[in-house]
């Protein structure tokens, strides 16, 4: 059972307004939402959890501390979906090793998408493809930075559905940033409210998966 735990994490060297110590845990198959004002450091916190920023304190996945495994391996297990996805190749297919009928189909694509030019993608298409790219990497924990910010209502539901499906199969903990109260309540059991210099964690009543 993969569970994710943060012990005394300090990233105030990256952003001075950050609390000096974060400690929380996200059990398997549960969600932690992060919310707070713009610029308060939500994305920075998420980046630190993927070990993308220098930090003090410890991150544990399934009881294993992040420093004990190689950084690329940690990032494969603790998969981060950034708010703005980046693409290095010219075509969609350059970013995938193989094709997965189910995942692409669920998010409204077929096999032809692999030949599409990256420069022609809309922001919504990029967001859905970035989500597929992340899930095909088979992460054990999902760190999602506003995963549905650029999507219309129906696509937002599709993405939420795909993510919850994945969570159910893999029993993954999810940590997500969202400004959508309704989404946080459907997908998360805890909410981390980030403020200037401190944070608090609340339990969300309604969030029961099933």
């Amino acid at each position, binding site marked *: 059972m993969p569970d994710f735990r943060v012990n005394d994490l300090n990233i105030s060297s990256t952003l001075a307004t950050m609390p000096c110590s974060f400690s929380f845990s996200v059990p398997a198959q549960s969600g932690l939402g992060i919310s707070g004002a713009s610029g308060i450091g939500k994305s920075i916190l998420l980046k630190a959890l993927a070990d993308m*920023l*220098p930090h003090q304190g410890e991150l544990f996945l399934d009881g294993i501390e992040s420093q004990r495994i190689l950084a690329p391996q940690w990032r*494969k297990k603790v*998969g981060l979906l950034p708010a703005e*996805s*980046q693409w*290095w190749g010219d075509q969609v297919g350059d970013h995938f090793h193989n094709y997965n009928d189910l995942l692409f189909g669920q998010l409204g694509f077929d096999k032809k998408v692999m030949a599409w030019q990256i420069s022609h993608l809309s922001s919504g298409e990029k967001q859905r493809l970035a989500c597929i790219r*992340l899930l095909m*990497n088979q992460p054990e924990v999902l760190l999602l930075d506003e995963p549905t910010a650029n999507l219309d209502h129906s696509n937002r539901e599709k993405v939420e559905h795909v993510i919850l499906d994945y969570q159910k199969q893999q029993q993954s903990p999810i940590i997500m940033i969202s400004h959508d109260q309704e989404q946080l309540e459907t997908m998360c059991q805890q909410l981390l409210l980030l403020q200037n210099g401190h944070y608090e964690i609340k339990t969300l009543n309604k969030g029961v998966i099933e």
Partner: protein
Amino acid sequence: MIHLTPWDLVIASGMIVLLAISSILLQLNIAKQLVIAACRNVVQLLLIGYILKLIFNTNNLYLLATIATIMLLVAGYEINARQKYPLKRWVGFKIGTSALFLSSFAMALLTLTVIVAPTPWYSPQYSIPLLGMLLGNTMNGISLGMDKLNQSVYQQKQIIEQRLMLGHRYQDAIKDIRIESVRTGMIPIVNSMAIAGLVSLPGMMTGQILSGTPPVEAVKYQILIFFLIASGTGFGIMTAVWMISKRMFDERQRLDLAILKIK
């Protein structure tokens, strides 16, 4: 061989003066730079001419080693000048000098001890021009490669981080940029090799022919120099790109651009 008199050079300098005057009249703004460069050119070359005369007469290994070291250090400094996103001073100097040492010194030593093998092996008539030519040319390529690398990494920071987030090793995340940088640095020498003899007569060969060397002899030397410059540039760029890109990531393979001097 026909010797040049001071008057011959005065006539040539007349052309420079004429160009400077036209540029002032046409407001092209190159007069000042042109005149300064021409004056520097005369002073630096006359100076090295007399120094070479001195060294040729003494044939002293230590004097030679001193001159060679100065040449290397100046090139190692200059290689970082005129870069868009230069490395911080000491790191840049260290990396530039190491790359040049490998590309030029190693190539020059190989040539002096194995290929041309004059007696003594450090004979200044061979070693100084050879080293100078290698340093000057490989410096160009290495400097272009470094410029491309630093600029691409700086501009593609987010793409590199995205790849790291997906669990790519840093070597993979920066692979495309490395390839592009090596390619960019190799363009000048590959171009000159490709057009040599068809479009241009290389400078060294021209010089040898002017001073009376049989053309085929001059050609053989030119080919040797081309091969040395090309392999030296290649190894030099590979060294520089490898050293820089290794330092752009910390021990947890996070992109860390602290080695760049961001203006």
